[in-house]
């Protein structure tokens, strides 16, 4: 309930201030260590930002998204090394299962359109950077033969950011299309770990002012 109110408050504040609504379909592909465990996913991102104008090449943007990740395997094979008193080592097999991994993320940042194509003032290539704050919801279990069996469930805060490059095309005074490619990374606080990935998105913006 608290999260829902938080989202609604965030969106209403920004829609009121910026009078824009942008809805994008995002394809997110995990990379690095995070990508070893999670599959790519699709999601929607709801945000707001002003239009680029000839005399306004920098704009602020705010958005939020919910990403639901599915693991690449039902069970991951993990192991634990036990050092015996005589100095020898035993390798104990184990497994790790992820039942739930969801990120709720809010972005806030700036985009910069350095130039406009010569023959039209409707196309705006841009680059941008966002800071991100959000929550991770996780449920899973880990077990090692003869040692331990742990079930974990809960949520933790995440912090991160993303960089992006994109293109916006103004259809008319009310609608714009935009496409974007970017790279992002975030830090989970408990337990400390890093998630990362890159994304493609295609969206439409409505200017209701």
């Amino acid at each position, binding site marked *: 309930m608290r999260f829902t109110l938080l989202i609604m408050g965030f969106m209403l504040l920004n829609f009121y201030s910026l009078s824009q609504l942008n809805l994008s379909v995002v394809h997110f592909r995990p990379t*690095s260590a995070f990508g070893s465990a999670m599959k790519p996913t699709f999601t929607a991102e709801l945000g707001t930002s002003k239009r680029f104008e000839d005399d306004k090449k920098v704009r602020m943007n705010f958005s939020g998204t919910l990403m639901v990740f599915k693991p690449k395997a039902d069970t*991951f094979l993990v*192991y634990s090394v036990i050092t015996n008193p005589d100095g020898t080592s*035993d390798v104990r*097999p184990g497994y790790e299962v992820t039942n739930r991994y969801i990120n709720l993320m809010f972005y806030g940042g700036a985009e910069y359109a350095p130039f406009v194509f010569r023959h039209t003032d409707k196309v705006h290539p841009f680059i941008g950077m966002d800071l991100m704050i959000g929550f991770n919801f996780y449920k899973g279990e880990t077990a090692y*033969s003869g040692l331990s069996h742990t079930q974990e469930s809960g949520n933790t805060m995440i912090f*991160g950011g*993303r*960089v992006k490059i994109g293109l916006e095309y103004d259809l008319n005074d009310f609608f714009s299309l935009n496409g974007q490619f970017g790279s992002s990374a975030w830090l989970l606080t408990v337990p400390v770990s890093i998630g990362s990935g890159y994304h493609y998105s295609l969206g439409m913006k409505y200017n209701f002012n």
Partner: protein
Amino acid sequence: MRTLVLTISFISLIVTMGCRKALKNAEDYYPEAEITSATIMQDGTVKVVGEVTSVGKYKGSVIDLVGFCATTASRKPILNERQITATLDGNTFTAFYPAGYFDEDSTYNISAWATNHYGYAISSYKSFGSLFLDVTPTCNLPVDYYQSGINTGYYSSVQEVSTNEFWASNGPYRCSIEFPTSPTAGVFKTNAYAEVGKVKCGFYQGGSWYALTSGKNVYVQKMSSTVYRVTICDAQFQVGSITVNASTSFDITL
């Protein structure tokens, strides 16, 4: 300036982390290994050789540990079943199971395993049956014979004290041998106590028990399904400051 440096560092970190493309399947991250051979050596140890065929398909993966596992069940062994870690040399790794570790009458499925940062993998197994060693002692002694210093003779009886301890006796004179488990064929070493690859062995004479000096070979030949022949050639034990040479050979019947 500091803000600019921090911003550029932040952007670089994000771009760098986001650019390492992931592999499609979780299994692609695990290493791969295979077992090459299992050979019983003259000292009764079993030499097992394996090979790493993949360190893991993700760039930068390295092997952490390698080894073998074995089972008598009709399946691939579990990682910690009769597990032994091995030494990796290039792509090949070798380990030695101690003498007496395997039952020579059983067939074993032996697999190789390897670990890296992402997890572990076990190879398909190979079956090895009758890991039975043809032991040849370095001396040729008559059966039930003993020679201890100036004492020589033949045992009048050999009795099973427990499943892994046996006494060969001639009156008050006795040779005792204790195995770590039930007797198996192989070349064992004398030791203060019985453990894998080692036996506790000594002589009773003059009312006292004298342990054989550690590190001497004890040859155990399998004569039949229930009879094993123990032969000790030129071992020693201490009686005070005197070193006594001893040799003996006797059959134990299970």
